[in-house]
């Protein structure tokens, strides 16, 4: 699936921040389609995991109250240029993707 999936890393306040942008509708399941008058089924990202050099450092559970096209930020301790960061996500419909970037590349 060709969803927009961008990862950016930057150093700030002594940690390396990993900013992740995913193009995703994040449907709450409460919204009503104006033409069909039916509820739009929920479709949202439930899980995101961050791996730092192959070790999982953070796992996020996301609810429906995360905005559409979410921008999420995570922090890494003692990260340096050349380290690998892998971010994976999956949603309630079983869609998933993962991407790996190198810090400072």
């Amino acid at each position: 699936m060709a969803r927009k999936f961008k990862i950016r890393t930057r150093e700030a306040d002594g940690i390396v921040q990993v900013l992740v942008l995913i193009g995703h509708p994040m449907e709450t399941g409460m919204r009503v389609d104006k033409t069909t008058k039916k509820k739009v089924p929920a479709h949202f990202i439930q899980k995101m995991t961050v791996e730092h050099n192959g070790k999982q450092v953070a796992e996020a559970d996301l609810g429906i109250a995360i905005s559409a096209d979410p921008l999420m930020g995570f922090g890494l301790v003692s990260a340096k240029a050349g380290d690998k960061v892998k971010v994976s996500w999956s949603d309630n419909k079983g869609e998933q993707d993962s991407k790996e970037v190198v810090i400072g590349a």
Partner: protein
Amino acid sequence: MINTNRRSFLKGTAATGVITLAAASGLLRPTKVMAASWPKNAFAEKSVEGAMKALYGSSNASPSKDLHITANLQAENGAMVPVQIQTPMKADAISIYVKENTNPLVTNLKLTGGAGFYRANIKMAKTSEVQFVVQSGGKLYTAKQKIKVTAGGCGG
């Protein structure tokens, strides 16, 4: 949560169509393992305390000055409110709640070596207190900030 402006409505409809196609053509396989550990009960809770209990087994959080919140005091659009929290504590988990949402729990981050930092764009139904909870060394710490949502026209 209930409010959706026209732009996100249109965007949502277009994107959902693409997924339906993909699912029908069998491109996607469900990830049962990952979905199974999603704390459904905590997300369904109607109060901040209830959600905290479901996640951490306790809602007894003490206010802390070591939780640094970065967020605007006023948001023009409740469908996308950027918030950020940073703490020097050795955090095991960070969660975000919007008190006035039907289901207050927005997200919970479990840390296994990551830094005490989390940022997210959240949805807010209306002006509300946004509460952050950090679990560190078996204890819960909390900080709050009220964010005004002005979408709706009257400027709050």
